[in-house]
């Protein structure tokens, strides 16, 4: 993918980070943090509104449903309560197909598509996956 595309995805991440007020910790953990030349953008404060706290004290991210670069991305707390272990009790879909996500102990997120860098919330993880997929469809593991 082009660096520009990737950078825009990271910009969105940074916006979401600022929205959650986690900028310091989340960015310290990312491969593409400020040390590598990516400056977090100012947040609009409208992402990452919370639906309550889980047992580790992290806010459960609010549901989302939007079209990003032509793909429908949806996220919501998992059915059956927020006790989904490392999934963070949260389910993310791209065009209806599940994107496996995991919440880190510090409240940041990764997915099966971006497994070695962290994002501020499930929406940022979903958007990064859309960029990385370049139009491809998620499939259950073969």
């Amino acid at each position, binding site marked *: 993918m082009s660096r520009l595309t*990737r950078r825009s995805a990271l910009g969105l991440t940074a916006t979401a980070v600022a929205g959650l007020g986690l900028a310091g910790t989340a960015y310290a953990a990312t491969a*593409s943090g400020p040390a590598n030349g990516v400056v977090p953008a100012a947040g609009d404060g409208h992402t990452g509104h919370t639906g309550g706290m889980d047992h580790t004290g992290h806010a459960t991210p609010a549901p989302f449903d939007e079209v990003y670069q032509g793909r429908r991305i949806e996220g919501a707390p998992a059915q059956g309560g927020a006790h989904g*272990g490392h999934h963070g009790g949260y389910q993310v879909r791209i065009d209806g197909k599940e994107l496996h996500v995991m919440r*880190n102990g510090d409240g940041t997120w990764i997915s099966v598509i*971006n497994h*070695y*860098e962290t994002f501020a919330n499930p929406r940022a993880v979903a958007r990064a996956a859309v960029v990385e997929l370049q139009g*491809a469809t998620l499939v259950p593991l073969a």
Partner: protein
Amino acid sequence: MTVRKNQATLTSDEKKRFVNALLTLKRNGKYDAFVTTHNAFIMSDGDDTDRVGHRSPSFLPWHRRFLIEFEQALQSVDSTVALPYWDWTADRTATSSLWAADFLGGTGRSRDGQVMDGPFASSGGQWAINVRVDGRNYLRRALGAGVPQLPTKAEVDSVLAMTTYDEAPWNSQSTGGFRNHLEGWRGVNLHNRVHVWVGGQMGTGVSPNDPVFWMHHAFVDKLWAQWQERHPASPYLPAAGTANVVDLRETMRPWNNVTPADMLDHKKFYTFDAA
């Protein structure tokens, strides 16, 4: 005795033998079994659940055991083959001989990330990506796109200088230990950053689909050996009684017959060409 060499020093015959062994394991299905195992662990290793392969103290012994098993599979094809290591502090650009057509092939094209040259290019018909998380069945890379710079020698040295192996909470949040800084969830970020720098499958849960996975981890493994040499009084931690992680003498899944203690001395299994 197996001697693991710097990939930059391999002769063309050694490169050819390594590549041929990889292609044979791919053909007979053994290669993909390793990809499946790795993904199963990486998807279940959570910060507050049972964790073995990643984000935990056993990250290093688990991958050491995983690489030994893979190296033995290669050697069942060609007994002269050993895993080469990729010193990404030295060979740090997309024009390195590592990415040449006679070895791993280069970066992917921009349209779809597809690797177009070398033995693992989709067009050669010998390297289908079968264990995958999306519809793309070809090897992909985007060298330097996800993050522009590979870790430097100075960054590696700063991590090798850390004196404690690992510390509570024994996961991706541990702030003061060698293991988490080498793995890359904190600090200058070594191992994780290299996955992101390569991009394509290397950035995903099915990262061993790219043969460079083994050469990257062989170097991470070598850094662990160097760290041990530098800090002979610093033991593997935790020693015992720690929930959700593998203590020194507890067995590791999926083998269930090997402990971190068994993995501490790599010289029982192989040596490196240089310190």
